[in-house]
């Protein structure tokens, strides 16, 4: 990682961990350089301008269902209720994560998206940000409220958790977000989770249209994708008004020989 990229990443993460992160007590006594993490994810700072809004399509990757949640005020909620039928950016995190290329980066990017949405009210009305904890044991509604206070959401950014594993597992499985507790050799939980940061872009029909991990989790790219989905929605007729191909339409035959230019992206 270059010094510039490293600094940029730290700056992003620094926003997220400006408050004391509750590192597990046992880890505080360990030289961090001696910790043998069993995997490492490459980190990248995008060095490009994202493609223009509407100049590309985002294929349907999967469809997710509704799931029960608890909001930061302790009130029952569901994913769809929070989403309100709009485009949503959903990030799975735990608030005591110490991997800079993990949850802190996700929070920092959503903070920037939140600020951009707040500056564009017409866009903010049509896009929801939802941060979901996968650590219900420690990330109680009260804890999520603390984190919400830290980030001072300006637009519609919700911090939610679940009542426990019974609600959490189906949610994680539905999205395809593997998470596991990292334990010491004696079996005790280290307080850390093995996970790869994934942020999901949902369209209005609750279909996953992009998944971002560290390499592509840039605020500008996510915002362009949100705008692209909204443009697509605006161009589509209301349900039942026609029979144009939806984004779930699969494939046509190979293009005829001699077709000019790249063939259209098939979904």
């Amino acid at each position, binding site marked *: 990682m270059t010094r510039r990229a490293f600094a940029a990443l730290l700056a992003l993460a620094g926003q997220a961990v400006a408050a*004391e992160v509750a590192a597990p007590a046992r880890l505080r006594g360990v030289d961090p350089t*001696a910790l043998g993490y069993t*995997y*490492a994810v490459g980190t990248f700072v995008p060095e490009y301008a994202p493609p223009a809004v509407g100049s*590309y399509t985002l294929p349907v990757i*999967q469809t997710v269902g509704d799931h029960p949640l608890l909001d930061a005020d302790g009130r029952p909620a569901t994913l769809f209720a929070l989403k309100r039928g709009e485009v949503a950016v959903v990030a799975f995190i735990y608030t005591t994560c*110490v991997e800079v290329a993990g949850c802190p980066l996700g929070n920092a990017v959503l903070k920037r998206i939140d600020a951009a949405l707040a500056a564009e009210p017409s866009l903010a009305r049509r896009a929801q940000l939802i941060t979901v904890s996968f650590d219900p044991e420690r990330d109680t509604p009260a804890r999520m409220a603390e984190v919400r206070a830290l980030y001072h959401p300006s637009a519609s950014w919700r911090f939610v958790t679940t009542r426990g594993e019974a609600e959490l597992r189906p949610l994680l499985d539905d999205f395809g977000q593997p998470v596991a507790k990292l334990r010491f050799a004696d079996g005790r939980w280290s307080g850390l989770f093995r996970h790869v940061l994934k942020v999901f872009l949902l369209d209005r029909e609750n279909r996953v249209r992009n998944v971002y991990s560290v390499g592509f989790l840039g605020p500008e790219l996510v915002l362009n994708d949100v705008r692209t989905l909204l443009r697509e929605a605006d161009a589509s007729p209301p349900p039942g008004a026609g029979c144009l191909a939806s984004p779930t339409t699969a494939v046509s035959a190979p*293009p005829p020989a001699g077709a000019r230019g*790249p063939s259209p992206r098939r979904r």
Partner: protein
Amino acid sequence: MRAFALIAVLLAAPLARGDETCMSPYMPKITGQEDYVYVWTLGVDGVGDGSDKLVTVAANPKAPNYGKVVSSVSVGGRHEAHHGDFTDDRRFFWAGGLDDSVLYVFEVAADPAHPKLVRTIDSFVRDTGGVVGPHTFFALPGRMLVSALSNERDQGGRTAMVTYNNDGKFVETVWMPDKAEYGYDVRVQPRLNRMLTSSFTGRQNYMRDFGALVADPEAMKHFGSTMVVWDFHARKAVQTLEVPGAPLEIRWALQPRHNYAFTTTALTSKIWLVAQQDDGSFRAAPVADIGDPKKTPLPVDISLSADDRFLFVDTFMDGTCRVYDVSDPRKPRVVHQQRIGSQVNMVSETWDGERVYFTSSLLANWDKKGKDNEQFLKAYGWDGKRLSPLFQVDFLAAGLGRPHIMRFGQERFYKNQIFEGS
């Protein structure tokens, strides 16, 4: 701010000491010594059960079964097993057959020593609108990108890239652009939002007997001679590069600010550098011959060291690995050369640069015949100057088949365990 300091130190520490250098950057990397080499292997009639299979070989010198076959799981039948790779979470290994375009998904996480076949996708051609010959598997977040070699309509070289989600559901097909219709490898440089594809030949050729193929001048005209630069996010071709002679494997440089990639051309025996220019476009240029191109040594797989210093280049016909110092990517120079066997194809270097693995098979109908048809996995140590043999497995004597692509596994990676002081 204690936690912030902890994060900074963790980041500054060298994280990935093990693993392989050519996998998707989206994939978490194992650190330290690999325990296993997974080898996607073509079945051979009369050898063992005759079926394609995923073979697991113990690769940790501390293991009592070091250098031995730990397990193998057959998929039933022969499908021209070729390439494969892990999903973005590394829990599953996807592999494909070039002949009938069937995909196989093995679960590795539950028991890394004994991968289990958990899904077979036999609808690839139908799903994709007629794409044939799944080649490279490249993990994306939540998805698997698969480049292909051919199409159902004429079995020629016009082909596409295909995406499935991690649950095995088809997502999309993106056909190669006109005038650059052949496909082979696909590799993404996320930092630049650029994807490179290369080009080989269609099913009519790659399933044909090699001797008959090279004796057929008309057939030999049907090989790719282009690479395509893509806007990865938009999946749009932005540039077509002329790279004559079937450019095959692509390896992006791994160091920051190294905005270039290497490939080699099978039919013209050259190393090509594909480098970003000041205006953001890419330029392809030949930078070195591989052996004597007049003898068509047939360069096949390549592996780039994590520090971008060494490029390992296998040439099939003479069974040789040439190690180039590519510190100056425009002036590669051979620093070591070693014959690995009567034939050699795939090469994989570990991330720490200390071990290099080789397998022997190219394609079932292209492998040498008779006594020259050696089929092996060979492990070597690499000290920056020479390759030193570590172990080898005779895949014919062991009743396994023709070994092709290799990927690495590790027990503790999947144990969800944090190691103090290791």
